[in-house]
């Protein structure tokens, strides 16, 4: 979607209001940045004159979209090209990729169907989330127990005269 695509769509609506849609109104229900509704009416007189103030408001909103769309298109182009190159670079490895996928699925299927395994896995997961264990581990880390234990080991023999 380019900025020009946006402008073309708006221009088509404006042209309708100037010709076959003379004397009619359209409500454009946009969504603004942040998610708020932004309903902009656009009307023309029986003579096909489009309300300039309304059109300016719509054009201003559409201009923002055009700029954003064009920037996105510009910035996305190198990513698209690089993505395609990356896809092609993976082609020589498709057989190995598929073999890895098949092996992974076979394992996953076997594990999923094994009720005792699932029970053991759940029990292990649950055991790791027990609050007393988590608190103890947090305290252990806070006290720098491993590092301080290492210091007690290292310090032995490092004696100095007093």
């Amino acid at each position, binding site marked *: 979607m380019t900025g020009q695509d946006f402008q073309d769509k708006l221009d088509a609506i404006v042209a309708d209001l100037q010709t076959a849609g003379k004397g009619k*109104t359209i409500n454009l229900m946009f969504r603004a940045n942040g998610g708020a509704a932004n309903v902009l009416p656009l009307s023309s007189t029986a003579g096909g004159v489009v309300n300039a103030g309304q059109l300016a408001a719509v054009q201003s909103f559409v201009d923002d979209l055009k700029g954003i769309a064009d920037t996105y298109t510009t910035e996305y182009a190198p990513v698209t090209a*690089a993505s395609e190159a990356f896809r092609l670079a993976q082609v020589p490895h498709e057989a190995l990729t598929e*073999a890895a996928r098949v092996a992974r699925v076979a394992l996953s299927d076997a594990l999923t169907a094994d009720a005792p395994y699932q029970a053991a896995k759940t029990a*292990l997961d649950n055991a790791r989330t027990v609050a007393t264990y988590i608190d103890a581990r947090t*305290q252990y880390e806070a006290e720098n127990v491993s590092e301080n234990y290492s210091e007690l080991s290292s310090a032995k023999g490092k004696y100095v005269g007093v």
Partner: protein
Amino acid sequence: MTGQSIQDKLNLIISDLHTDFAGQGVNLMFRDVTNTPVVFVITANEIGEVNAAQVAAVQAFVDNLVNAADDLELFSIPIRAAQIAFNAAQLPHSALIESARLARVALQTALDGDANYQQAKGDLDDAKTVEYEQALVDYKNNNVPENAAELSNARGNYFPFVDGPGGGQ
């Protein structure tokens, strides 16, 4: 690591100062709960009498380590038991686990050894610039696809314009 193993380390140092290293001292460089260095000194006189106040200070610090280690050890017991049960439950699937591992390693080895793939991967990472990421965010935040669809959908949905207060506006 148990609390006793920590205590044993301290006891060995004190024992050294009592005996073979009488008349010497040691600097113990710990890190406390605020990650601040805490340096303790323990010295012994020529006949191997260790400074009691210095030992008490070190022991107070080490007691916290001992308690923390013992608590973790205690509350890890159910996890170790669950881990043993889990390992046993995995045993029937050892062959499949190994097959999956070998397949994964084979793929990774092939990818690692493929300069063309690595180049393409690096190029793709490089292509995702800060500007691109920002454009992507703006594109999403401004609901560009939805608003484009609205411009398409709205066309033709005209209704009569009534000029004047409250009409057509």
